[in-house]
């Protein structure tokens, strides 16, 4: 097989050198894209209604959906003074399970010292006060595959129907016929030459001559394709005198020059095979796109799994209610979070998140007044009266993420806290769009079972994605 870029194609004597060179430099079919890939927007998960009301202490991370954008990183960062937290994080792909990337994410998060702006997260004894350690594993399983033949066929039909790869289509479609004719023509010519050499009867020579003429005609016909009108008109404009008598409706392009070999046909295939095809390059609603989309039904859907273990230590200062003495306690809080999600056609992304949490809550603050010596005066302080109480939460959340139309996306969530028997429904409806980032805002309608309140708020925030973001 030869791969060259010599001027092997002619158009009624006009070489196509320029066109070939341009195609060789840029053989890829392009579709409109945004000017630049923007830096990935950092997304912060929004806390749902139940969590903000029923969870406290350092275990304040929300239900975590599986991330799909985790990158290897070692990060030490402090946030703004407003929420005053520092974080150390290490994350990355640690292996592959079921041919899919397994990610690990470990982070320490703790409060910043308001004076120094520093955050000390751990020492040799372990985590420091109010610091949370979070170890997570994530797995994204998606193994789509296309059977080669239907794809080739679909692409071929698309290329040929849209005139994106004439030579490819020609070479592929005509190669067997041309190869057969290329063999038959010299054989017939040879038979004619031999008949003439041995002075065969005139009738036999006439028959052989007719046979040669017929085969040569067939080869010539097989060797051309209708020329795209725009290309034809361009050629006519370039040299109107030479092609005065030509009509673009009947203009043909010779695909192979004289003496083309079968290897040249292979070259045609090889050269044009550099064209690519994809679903988004095909018109919406077209038969080729529909055919591609139908392949979705043959694939297992994308599945996202993740598990997190969160542990944190928190110190409490309180007053013993029996002795009224100052006391302190250090408690360990922990949580386990498991998430799973699947993209179902045509429903959308369906996720379930579960969180078990055991945490400690400071007793309510109260004003304690005690006599000041024998003066009859009192001294009062706001204190936590009594040791912190342990609370347990089992919370499950169901989530749907769906781009319903080109102007509407929804992300309804149902959350239930089994320990407090509190249910909450939240239904962000996205209809506000940012030119580059997609859906970024809308209305959030919510309801809680404990207060029986329905709320509706306008919001603008991070771009909504089909899969839970990073």
């Amino acid at each position, binding site marked *: 097989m030869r*791969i060259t870029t010599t001027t092997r194609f002619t158009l009624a004597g006009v070489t196509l050198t320029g066109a070939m060179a341009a195609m060789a430099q840029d*053989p*890829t079919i*392009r*579709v*409109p*894209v*945004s000017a630049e*890939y923007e830096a*990935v*927007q950092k*997304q912060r998960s929004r806390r749902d209604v139940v969590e903000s009301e029923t969870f406290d202490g350092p275990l304040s991370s929300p239900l975590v959906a599986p991330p*799909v*954008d*985790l*990158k*290897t990183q070692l990060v030490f960062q402090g946030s703004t003074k407003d929420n005053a937290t520092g974080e150390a994080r290490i994350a*990355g*792909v640690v292996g592959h399970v079921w*041919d899919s*990337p397994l990610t690990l994410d470990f982070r320490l998060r703790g409060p910043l010292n308001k004076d120094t702006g520093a955050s000390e997260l751990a020492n040799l004894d372990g985590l420091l006060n109010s610091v949370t350690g979070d170890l997570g594993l994530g797995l994204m399983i*998606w*193994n*789509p*595959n*296309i059977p*080669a033949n239907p*794809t*080739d066929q679909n*692409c071929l039909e698309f290329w040929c129907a849209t005139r994106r790869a004439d030579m490819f289509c020609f070479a592929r479609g005509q190669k067997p016929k041309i190869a057969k004719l290329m063999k038959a023509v010299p054989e017939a010519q040879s038979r004619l030459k031999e008949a003439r050499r041995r002075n065969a009867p005139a009738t036999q020579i006439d028959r052989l001559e007719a046979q040669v003429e017929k085969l040569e005609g067939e080869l010539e016909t097989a060797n051309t394709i209708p020329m795209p009108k725009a290309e034809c008109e361009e050629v006519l404009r370039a040299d109107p005198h030479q092609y005065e008598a030509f009509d673009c409706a009947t203009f043909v392009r010779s695909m192979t020059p004289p003496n083309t070999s079968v290897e040249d046909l292979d070259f045609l295939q090889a050269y044009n*095979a*550099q*064209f*690519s*095809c*994809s*679903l*988004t*390059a095909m018109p*919406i609603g077209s038969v080729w*796109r529909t055919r*591609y*989309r139908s*392949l*979705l039904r043959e694939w297992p859907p*994308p599945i996202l799994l993740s598990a997190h273990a969160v542990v944190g230590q928190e110190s409490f200062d309180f007053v013993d209610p029996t002795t009224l003495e100052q006391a302190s306690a250090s408690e360990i809080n922990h949580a386990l979070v498991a998430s799973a999600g699947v*993209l179902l056609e045509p429903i959308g992304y369906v996720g379930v998140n579960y969180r078990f949490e055991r945490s400690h809550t400071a007793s309510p603050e109260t004003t304690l007044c005690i006599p000041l010596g024998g003066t009859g005066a009192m001294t009062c302080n706001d204190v936590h009266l009594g040791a912190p109480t342990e609370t347990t939460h089992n919370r499950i959340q169901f989530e749907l993420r769906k*781009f319903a*139309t*080109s102007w509407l*996306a929804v992300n309804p969530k149902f959350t239930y806290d089994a320990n407090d028997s509190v249910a909450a429904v939240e239904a962000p409806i996205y209809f506000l769009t940012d030119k580059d980032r*997609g*859906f970024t805002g809308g209305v959030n309608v919510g309801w809680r079972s404990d207060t029986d309140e329905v709320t509706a708020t306008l919001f603008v925030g991070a*771009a*909504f*994605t*089909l*899969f*839970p*973001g990073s």
Partner: protein
Amino acid sequence: MAKKTVTLETKKSAGLILVVRIDGTKLQLDEDGNGECDLTGGVAHVLDFFVRGQPGGTYKVAITAPSESRLRREAVLDQDQLDIGHAYFFVKA
């Protein structure tokens, strides 16, 4: 037949998932979206890529080496929230 290392780069916007196959075998991409594999020279190979995500999400798939195999495909996902791509490339012997 001698093999050559083919290098591939991908980029995608947040929230998209992307899978690449070369000659039917899933290519393990690193966290930056890069991957490579050794392919037989002198023949054509097939690149398939699959992208799912929100409309407006962008992605890029490019073969960056060897030079004769270079190709690049980039697109914006539309209402189908999906792209499937198929391309041939050649590796010289």
